[in-house]
């Protein structure tokens, strides 16, 4: 979900001016209208409580400096780290794995160990195999029981991935490298059986003109990550999506004649997202077909890495690195999703106020994220028990907004 394109009620002059500027050009036939002038017919989405089948919670591992991709020696084992991707693990997985495996290859190993089997671990293992290495994954669980499967599963490559100042200017280049390589690799999964990766329309609805939300620093707040060890306001977060807007579809205003909803202000964007069941299965299938081995193992200290038979270990332990490696720079950021019965015919996403519903192959994912809190939502909160009431509230808010432009038209 495009988390930063948030709906606000006040001061919509920018958006109105934008529409005004586009209209004459469109009338002159220079710019085709966004939807070719036709109002799309959307299959109704059922968002009643009777459809709710799951509420999932997870913790994003935010590191102020960005993901840890450093290397160190434990005994005579080379350990290459690949963890701490905040809310961007799925989205950066291929690019991040490319960097970690590249470092592992620098000592010419024939086999490597990967610790952890979330989206980062499993992707890293497959990238290592594609580089010709024999790979064993050591982990507590296969991907289906990891935190990665409790994400929302959209391409959100700069969601809580770093804090701007501690990460420094150089991180932007590294981030862009990871994001671009990941984006292109995800495209190789489009159209495969089971649709592991898909695109869908994401509609933002509003009662008032829509404008992009910005987070200027509040001068009244003198504390920061530097003094508190956690971010204290939204302006501290690093934002990098502008760097790849040449390839990632941006939101466009929907003219009234193309608006399928009853709400007066609508934007549409094309959103890339991941279907967990299919994607996990596809990745595991490649891992095992290439001769990968999975060993069920729980590690209790970094010293245990030196007991592994492989001389090179890639550490992909996500939030667990906070305790296992004593990395207190990992800041927990709680997130929660509700899941409705899959509705493949209603193949789109809708956002309204603080609520989003997104129809995916494995269910309709529901989120209730207060836009006034922004990236700070869940910061420092490591409570991983779901709270159903937030999802129930979300469904009540979004249900009336899903009404079609003309009653009974669908």
């Amino acid at each position: 979900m495009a988390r930063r394109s948030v709906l606000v009620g006040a001061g919509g002059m920018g958006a109105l001016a934008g529409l005004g500027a586009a209209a004459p050009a469109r009338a002159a036939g220079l710019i085709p209208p966004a939807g070719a002038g036709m109002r799309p017919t959307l299959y109704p989405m059922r968002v009643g409580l009777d459809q709710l089948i799951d509420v999932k919670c997870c913790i994003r591992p935010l590191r102020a400096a960005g993901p840890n991709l450093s290397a160190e020696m434990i005994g005579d084992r080379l350990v290459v780290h690949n963890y701490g991707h905040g809310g961007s693990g799925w989205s950066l997985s291929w690019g991040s794995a490319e960097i970690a495996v590249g470092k592992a290859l620098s000592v010419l190993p024939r086999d490597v160990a990967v610790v952890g089997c979330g989206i980062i671990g499993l992707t890293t293992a497959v990238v290592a195999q594609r580089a010709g290495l024999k790979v064993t994954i050591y982990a507590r669980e296969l991907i289906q029981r990891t935190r990665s499967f409790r994400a929302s599963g959209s391409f959100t490559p700069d969601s809580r991935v770093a804090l701007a100042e501690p990460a420094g200017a150089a991180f932007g280049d590294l981030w862009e490298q990871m994001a671009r390589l990941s984006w292109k690799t995800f495209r190789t999964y489009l159209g495969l059986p089971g649709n592991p990766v898909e695109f869908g329309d994401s509609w933002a609805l509003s009662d008032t003109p829509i404008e992009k939300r910005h987070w200027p620093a509040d001068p009244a707040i003198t504390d920061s990550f530097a003094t508190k060890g956690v971010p204290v306001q939204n302006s501290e977060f690093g934002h990098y999506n502008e760097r790849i807007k040449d390839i990632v579809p941006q939101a466009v205003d929907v003219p009234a004649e193309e608006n399928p909803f009853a709400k007066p202000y609508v934007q549409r964007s094309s959103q890339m997202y991941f279907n967990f069941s299919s994607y996990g299965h596809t990745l595991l299938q490649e891992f095992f077909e290439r001769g990968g081995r999975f060993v069920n193992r729980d590690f209790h200290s970094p010293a245990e890495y030196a007991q592994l038979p492989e001389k090179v270990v890639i550490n992909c332990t996500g939030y667990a690195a906070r305790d296992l490696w004593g990395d207190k720079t990992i800041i927990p950021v709680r997130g929660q999703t509700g899941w409705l019965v899959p509705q493949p015919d209603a193949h789109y996403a809708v956002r309204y106020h603080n609520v989003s519903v997104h129809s995916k192959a494995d269910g309709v994912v529901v989120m209730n994220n207060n836009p006034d809190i922004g990236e700070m939502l869940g910061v420092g909160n490591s409570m991983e028990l779901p709270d159903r009431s937030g999802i129930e509230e979300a469904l009540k808010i979004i249900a009336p907004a899903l009404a079609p432009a003309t009653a009974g038209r669908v």
Partner: protein
Amino acid sequence: MRKRIIGAGVVAGLVAVLAGGAGLAAPKAPPHLSYTADQAAAGAQVYAVRCAMCHGRRMEGTLETPALTGKFVANWAGRPVGDLPAYLARAMPQFAPGSLTGDEAVRLTAFILQANGYAAGARPLGAAERINLPLPPPIVAPRQ
């Protein structure tokens, strides 16, 4: 992990047989894992308040939260028992790591050991217990 433990047991047995065969004095029994029933009972109270909300009333866990029986033994067997209260004290509960006292962590460990079939004894468990966690008693009941 399991092979190593079983291997160690076989070696210890052989040493005992050899020692006995050579007519030497019986070796002093190695220290065995012990906790008291009182420790486990106190641990049960801590568990109910601080742990059950995530790990379940019966330690059964969920898809997301580890169960504390069953696979628990595979995860911890062969490791110093004292590592477990140390882990609990620094990492649990996940929403408030570091909030358990050392005593609470030891009592919780006793309760978890009890739930996994290890018998209580006379000697209380200590925070610095260096004995490696042995395999639990056999789960196969003798044939009637």
